[in-house]
């Protein structure tokens, strides 16, 4: 009898569960002014000074403002600063917007700017975003009055505005940081168009409109970022209306969404370059002829197509092609096996050699390594593929223990200095310069480029720098990144940003 009751109960419970489940889902019936966005990862913290991951930066960009901000074409326009002027070649003076309120009702002043940069750059606080603004001479930031501030750099730094527009430079409320201390990341207070309403850790960040925002209130009342790590799940959510906007649609779903009537696919060139790199200080790659021979021997089109498909276009230069000052004329290695053989013979490797390609566990990089193996076999070059866990891989390539490796570089400020200096300046060997490139003429150009205030002159310098890099062949560029956002048809005003941090102030729902 007891067993019978148990089974009956069980059946009733299951039925109840299934019946409850049959009701239309909550997301399908969301309020009209509630925009739901699928982020590709969950947020780590909402303290902009402490993050280095794009998923968190994206959310922080809705909560905070910087002194300046990026335009959709990666220019710079006023945000919390109304205008600025160079006092001398190292110092920039900002006039700040008045009557701007933080979410806690406190007025924004120059003290908040000073406080933000001082804490960000304070070595003892260990903020991950510190290195992005390391050029600022933090000791000498000068508050002239509540709405005027002078920010000096250690050396003349022409790209300072683009760096100040980066998400690491967003301004936090001094009062709120002092109130919440280490918990500021869970209680963020900025001046942005949205303020935090609730953080369901691991699931979603719920923001609500900040009505006193200086640009006027946002279109939607509520904005939710859900962390959905699986790409195909994000596609399905935007297809079925579970979310309105889905970031980083996997390449395999592009076609499906292109044909969809309810979802529009926004494809855009992101500012990331995927590349293969040589250790230019290790044998045999310390001989430029060997590097050039391998550059000639590889079919970049095939590598890019097979490894990245629609998520990349074959690269044609030494930085991402969507960054200004990109020089498309310098790449001089179309596939030419005869030339490759000649160069190898000149270098004394006519019978080829054996080398190791070290990579992390990313699948496109494995594909590239395998194709390279077959393309280089004709030259007698044998490749051993060594796959490492990401942390160990970073450490190894920084230490110069590799023959060849693969990395990607995202110049998220959109400035050519950010695209070239970290990767090719000899002072950055062991940091981002993992090809161990050491070329005094190039160093000079890169330093000149960042000191030169005139944009046209800067462009000329960076174009020359790319020519030098091409001759030196420290890397083999493979693909420029392409990303795609899926947006429901009833969403209005969405404009994708090449930085990946699409803004929602102007975005509405029909």
């Amino acid at each position: 009898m007891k067993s019978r009751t148990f089974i009956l109960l069980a059946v009733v419970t299951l039925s109840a569960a299934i019946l409850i489940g049959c009701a239309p889902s909550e997301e399908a019936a969301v309020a009209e002014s509630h925009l739901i966005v699928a982020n590709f990862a969950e947020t780590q913290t909402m303290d902009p000074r402490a993050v280095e991951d794009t998923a968190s930066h994206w959310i922080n960009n809705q909560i905070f403002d910087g002194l300046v901000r990026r335009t959709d074409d990666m220019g710079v326009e006023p945000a919390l600063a109304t205008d600025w002027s160079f006092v001398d070649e190292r110092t920039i003076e900002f006039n700040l917007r008045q009557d701007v309120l933080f979410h806690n009702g406190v007025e924004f002043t120059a003290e908040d700017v000073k406080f933000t940069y001082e804490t960000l750059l304070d070595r003892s606080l260990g903020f991950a975003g510190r290195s992005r603004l390391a050029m600022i001479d933090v000791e000498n930031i000068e508050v002239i009055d509540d709405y005027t501030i002078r920010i000096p750099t250690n050396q003349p730094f022409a790209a300072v505005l683009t760096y100040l527009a980066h998400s690491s430079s967003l301004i936090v409320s001094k009062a709120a940081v002092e109130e919440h201390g280490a918990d500021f990341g869970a209680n963020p207070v900025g001046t942005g168009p949205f303020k935090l309403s609730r953080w369901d850790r691991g699931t979603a960040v719920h923001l609500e409109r900040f009505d006193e925002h200086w640009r006027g209130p946002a279109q939607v009342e509520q904005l939710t970022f859900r962390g959905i790590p699986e790409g195909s799940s994000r596609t399905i959510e935007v297809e079925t209306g579970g979310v309105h906007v889905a970031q980083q649609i996997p390449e395999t779903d592009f076609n499906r969404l292109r044909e969809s009537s309810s979802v529009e696919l926004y494809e855009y060139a992101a500012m990331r370059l995927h590349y293969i790199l040589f250790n230019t200080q290790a044998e045999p790659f310390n001989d430029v002829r060997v590097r050039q021979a391998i550059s000639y021997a590889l079919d970049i089109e095939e590598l890019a197509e097979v490894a990245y498909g629609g998520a990349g276009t074959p690269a044609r230069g030494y930085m991402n092609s969507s960054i200004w000052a990109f020089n498309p004329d310098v790449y001089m290695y179309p596939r030419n096996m005869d030339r490759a053989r000649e160069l190898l013979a000149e270098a004394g490797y006519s019978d080829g050699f054996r080398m190791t390609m070290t990579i992390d566990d990313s699948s496109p990089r494995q594909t590239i390594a395998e194709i390279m193996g077959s393309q280089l076999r004709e030259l007698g070059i044998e490749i051993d593929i060594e796959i490492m866990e990401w942390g160990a891989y970073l450490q190894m390539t920084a230490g110069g223990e590799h023959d060849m490796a693969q990395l990607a570089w995202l110049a998220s400020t959109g400035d050519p200095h950010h695209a070239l200096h970290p990767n090719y300046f000899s002072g950055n060997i062991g940091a981002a310069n993992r090809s161990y490139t050491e070329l005094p003429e190039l160093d000079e150009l890169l330093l000149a480029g960042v000191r030169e205030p005139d944009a046209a002159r800067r462009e000329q310098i960076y174009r020359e720098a790319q020519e030098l890099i091409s001759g030196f062949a420290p890397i083999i560029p493979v693909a420029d990144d392409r990303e795609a956002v899926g947006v429901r048809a009833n969403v209005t005003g969405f404009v994708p940003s090449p930085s990946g941090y699409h803004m929602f102030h102007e975005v509405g729902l029909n």
Partner: protein
Amino acid sequence: MIRYIFKRLLSLIPVLLGATFIVFAIMFFTPGDPATIMLPQDATAEDIAMMRDFLGLNEPFLVQYRDFLLRLAQGDLGNSFRTGQSVLGLILSRLPATMQLATASLVIAIMIGLIAGVVAAVRQYTVWDGGAMVTALLGVSMPNFWLGLMLILFFAVFWANSFGYTLLPASGYGTMQHMIMPAIVLGTAHAAFITRITRSSMLEVLRQDYIRMAKAKGLSPFKVVFVHALRNALMPVVTIIGLRFGVLLGGSVVTERIFAWPGIGRLLIDAVRAQDYNVVQGIILTYAIIFSLVTLGVDLLYSFIDPRVKVRYR
């Protein structure tokens, strides 16, 4: 009995110490560096050294482990390297989701597994038996991610395309509907195990003399199977269920990822990848405690199923 429980809880201490030491050593000696992973790729050697110092990673292994134990003794699991948040807070924020999903999938697994196992045993070598065993084999063999995507395609995509609304939300957390698909996915594999164990255990019991006696007395087949046979066949089944519950509480990375379920499995994998020592330690500690408690619970359950076992607890 209480003394037994106390003794068991006491024996938890060396287990936890051992587990934390091994994990700490593995993390410490694994190549790679949390500071390198945290900082941007263009961070200089100086930046990295500073961050290592900030995180206290420059101390020798034993000093770091001692500090960890001292903090632990005060109930402090430390903060996450990546986010600065308290590890205990992080774990507590994920545990409810993991518990809910584990319980729901276990309920599904038990209901399917017990019924299918009993039917297969009672109707041995019939279509029922074959059907249950083939289904169990399928359940064990089906990869989680495949079943998960198939369910999403049917309940969310197909339904939305055909009827204009989704029968179940494709992913997320918060309501009963969100739980159904992940619970089915996780429950299926475990149901298959329970089916097989129940079947073999039941077969053994059904051959015993007292069952023949019960049948000879003229008891209804239902009573013979569910009252006399099943209870005695339950011992190995309960053991398996206990172990499965322990496994389920560990979270399932694949299922959690597909359904964007905020479970502890994903937190652990992310922490391991970022070499976030404190978070990894905290989660392993939680696993060890949960697993030990579940095993203890199973042991205690034996005495309710089989009163003879009680003697052992004195």
